[in-house]
């Protein structure tokens, strides 16, 4: 089965030009992503999460590895995550308490209860929240990176798209537009086997997503999405090329969505042995830990310290916000426009 092919990209003997601190930093983001999502699952089961819960289990490696290749901070690079790229937002500086507040629709959340899950942004930190219409962020990121180019700023954009998302019209229009304009944009195409319940065979007639890149005349590569360091290296190369003026870079990451589309989805359409194999044999965090230990890059004690710190951080973040109020109803009215400042309160509410 194609999806079980063992990774062909091996991690380098030396850790990708990264320091020990950076290697531990990557591990921290991986653990933070998984622990935060596990906490969200618990809150979901307690009905504290208002809407759906979308897990990135098994995909933390590609989210963290790709984002880690960007320049972070003010006037740095900008990425646009999808629902399974929580890890990339944490790398850019999103705080767990913001994610928790957003999922629980708290008044003090980043969108003050207006939007769900990871749909929020901080352009200063370098992430632009998605909307639910898949593909739409590619034209938008084309415009952001076109602006970098017009202003001569040495900045790069990175946008994620799932295998199913590549079927949309905006994916095509945006990628073509960005390719023609030679925008400094890196497109991470995630082959994770499932678009809700639809497998790639019903989504497109090419074998691999990388085959699509040829049609746009953009440079493309494929990487094992569950090998964090390989993703980091491949993205780093793509980012450097984009920054150097080589135009759009397309990177297909091979991975696997190990939970349902959202928490309500029982995954009955997925072969259980396949899920089991990816969990036991190809978990991105397990593989990374094995690499770190085998190469003596860090010791186990350091990793368990990170685990403990992350647990405390998530506990504190949860305690800080779980009992916070939801927004007051009338705060729904302001902010549709810069001017007028608030929508009209309708007459029957004043009766």
């Amino acid at each position, binding site marked *: 089965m194609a999806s079980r092919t063992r990774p062909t990209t091996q991690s380098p003997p030396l850790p990708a030009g990264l320091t020990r601190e950076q290697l531990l930093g990557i591990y921290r983001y991986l653990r933070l992503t998984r622990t935060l999502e596990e906490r969200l699952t618990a809150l979901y089961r307690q009905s504290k999460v208002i809407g759906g819960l979308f897990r990135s289990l098994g995909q933390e490696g590609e989210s963290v590895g790709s984002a880690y290749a960007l320049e972070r901070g003010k006037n740095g690079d900008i990425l646009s995550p999808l629902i399974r790229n929580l890890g990339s937002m944490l790398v850019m500086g999103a705080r767990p308490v913001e994610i928790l507040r957003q999922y629980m629709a708290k008044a003090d959340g980043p*969108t003050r209860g*207006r*939007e769900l899950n990871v*749909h*929020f*942004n901080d*352009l200063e930190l370098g992430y*632009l*929240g998605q*909307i*639910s*219409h898949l593909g*739409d962020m*590619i*034209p*938008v*990121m*084309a*415009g*952001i*990176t*076109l*602006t*970098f180019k*017009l202003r001569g700023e040495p900045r790069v954009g990175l946008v994620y798209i799932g295998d199913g998302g590549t079927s949309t*019209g*905006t994916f095509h*229009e*945006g990628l*073509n*537009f960005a390719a*023609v*304009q030679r925008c400094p944009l890196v497109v991470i195409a995630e082959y994770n086997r499932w678009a809700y319940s639809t497998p790639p065979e019903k989504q497109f007639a090419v074998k691999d997503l990388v085959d699509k890149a040829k049609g746009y005349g953009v440079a493309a590569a494929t990487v094992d999405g569950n090998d964090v360091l390989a993703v980091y290296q491949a993205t780093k190369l793509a980012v450097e090329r984009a920054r150097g003026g080589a135009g759009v870079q397309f990177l297909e990451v091979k991975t696997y969505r190990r939970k349902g589309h959202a928490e309500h989805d029982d995954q009955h359409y997925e072969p259980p042995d396949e899920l089991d194999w990816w969990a036991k044999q190809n978990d991105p965090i397990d593989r990374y830990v094995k690499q770190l230990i085998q190469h003596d890059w860090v010791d186990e004690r350091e990793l368990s310290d990170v685990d403990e710190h992350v647990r405390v951080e998530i506990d504190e973040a949860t305690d800080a916000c779980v009992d916070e109020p939801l927004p007051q109803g009338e705060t729904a009215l302001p*902010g*549709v*426009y*810069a*001017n*007028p400042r608030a*929508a009209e309160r309708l*007459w029957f509410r004043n009766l």
Partner: protein
Amino acid sequence: MPEVTYLEALRQGLWEEMERDDRVFILGEDVGLYGGAFKVTEGFSQRFGAQRVIDTPISEAAIVGAAAGAAHMGMRPVAEMQFIDFVSCAYDMLTNYVATARYRAGLATPLVVRGPCGGYVRGGPFHSQNPEAAFFHTPGLKIVYPATARDAKGLIKASIRDDDPVLYLEHKWLYRRIKEQLPEGEEIVTPIGEARLAREGTDLSIVTYGATVWKSLEAAEQLEQEDGVAAEVLDLRTLLPMDDAAIMRTVKKTNKVLLVHEDTRTGGVAGEIAARINEQAFEWLDAPIKRVTAHDVPLPYAPTLEDFVLPQTEDIVKAARWLAAY
């Protein structure tokens, strides 16, 4: 004082904003060296360079999406739809992405999407549309629709300077038909959200916008000559946000109102205006609110068919007579 066409006035407005603010840039199909299908951007590429007058692929969703991204980064993009009929291809980007951006994410998205609208030009179903009703229902967008050369200039300048996304609808039947003296060196900026009293009258009010402003003025002239009926004509200029105060002022003055638009009837803007008058000025009405609009069919090509489907001056005259006699 030089006499300029509606199209030249629009062109001047765009040009002046490009000169004034280097964050302003244009993107669209054939807008560069070719100067646009109707020559609105003729000479722009030579003056401002290919970086600020960007020829794009035939990709309306990408044009609007890229404009949104640039706007987030502090630019002031003006996206041209070659014909406004094609804005439907960008409906998702405009309504889901652009219109919601400030509300859901606090993202400033100051962009203008503009393009030639309207019929009376034998353009057939896909080069004659009036798309306002499709966007009128979307909180977060503004919609302007100038009828005069002065407002073509004043509203494009106001739209570019506005901090919200604006759909700027320009009527291609007016492009070279309407001329006006515009003083050189005068800064013309038409405030968004303010209607214009195009003709004063006391017997009934015609509330309209776009090309039918001119047809309504013709009708009003005829009514005065032939019937001694004094019709007031209100040119809305901005559809979203709508100038309720101006509408209610004229309703309370004449007590009879005829709503006229070139777009089809069902779900059209006139229905919303009628509802607002009902809610805000019911006691002032001496007659039912009546509509003159296009018939509810796609706009056909043959002159005989198009003329039948679209509201004509004579239709407005007859409807106004009916109202005056009520």
